[in-house]
């Protein structure tokens, strides 16, 4: 069963085709890695999947429903972590958690504590004053506490120190391993994708240049080399 299906998915901003005719399928329980340089369209694609943007053309189906006009029940089955800061800066971390929890019937406080608690999280600090590491942790806790079936992560490891990155990957492994949830993860760190993804989509200029199993896509090369080859060929 495919949890995500898109066909010729396109999103245009003015003259820019941020996502250009993207067709992909993500089977339930698998991890799709989006790999691409800055401006490749990874964030826009994730926003379209999350339902935060409407497509200009093409079709998109997430959890068996079209993304536009998604019912609240569907929102509750998705966890989305954006790259930019979007949580209200004037709330404290604790308020942010309480506020978000109030929208969900399912809320795993133990998991939230596990995600936040390990590092003496400054719960009374305003969101705007949180460090990158703490902010990411809060975002992840908010995105995962309701046990979503689909997790969408936009560059979650960028700006994290090695310990923070390792913790985050461990968390994700726990989620995939325990509940068999489906993940779409963007990163410019090839190693993250190689470690975490079942399939990889290499993106450039809004287009998906190749899509397939990580092993099949890279063949006997490193994934890094494969990625560079695709992008260079495209830019020539």
């Amino acid at each position, binding site marked *: 069963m495919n949890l995500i299906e898109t066909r010729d998915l396109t999103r245009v901003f003015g003259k820019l085709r941020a996502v250009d005719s993207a067709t992909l399928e993500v089977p339930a329980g698998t991890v799709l890695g989006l790999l691409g340089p800055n401006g490749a369209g990874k964030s826009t694609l994730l926003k379209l999947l999350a339902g935060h943007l409407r497509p200009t053309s093409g079709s998109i189906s997430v959890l068996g429903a079209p993304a536009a006009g998604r019912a609240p029940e569907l929102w509750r089955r998705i966890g989305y972590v954006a790259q930019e800061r979007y949580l209200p800066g004037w709330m404290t971390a604790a308020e942010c958690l309480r506020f978000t929890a109030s929208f969900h019937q399912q809320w795993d406080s133990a998991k939230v504590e596990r995600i936040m608690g390990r590092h003496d999280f400054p719960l009374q600090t305003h969101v705007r004053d949180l460090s990158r590491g703490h902010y990411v942790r809060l975002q992840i806790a908010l995105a995962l506490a309701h046990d979503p079936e689909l997790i969408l992560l936009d560059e979650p490891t960028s700006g994290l120190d090695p310990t923070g990155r390792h913790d985050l990957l461990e968390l994700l492994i726990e989620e995939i391993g325990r509940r068999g949830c489906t993940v779409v993860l963007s990163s410019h760190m090839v190693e993250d994708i190689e470690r975490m*993804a079942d399939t990889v989509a290499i993106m450039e200029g809004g287009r998906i240049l190749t899509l397939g199993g990580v092993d099949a896509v890279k063949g006997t090369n490193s994934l890094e080399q494969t990625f560079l080859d695709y992008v260079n060929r495209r830019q020539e």
Partner: protein
Amino acid sequence: MRDGVPIYLQIVEQVKRNVALGRLKPEEGLPSVRQLALDLTINPNTVARAYLELEHQGVIYKRQGQGTFVSSQAAEASRRERHKMVSALFEKAVIEAVNSGMTGREIEETYHQLLRRYGLEEG
């Protein structure tokens, strides 16, 4: 991680190697998929795929609700692999000896000395 070799195959090779070397014994339990995924920081689906492949090859087997174990046939198969490995080492030693100008008799004598040292000479 090595380039160009799928991660799941690297796990398959590692497990087989450790069985062949006797570091993993028959009926010994392997870490759970989740645990190994955490230890290696890789997708649990990849570990599950490696375990499935090892199961197909008869190296490991699942016991319902108890986990994954090294099969006893694996030990036999791996002993054969190990014997092959040892013969190869012997061959290397013989080639080295010939290249150093040792005679067949000298090589044989060295070999018997070793057997005596470890109390293995029969008769």
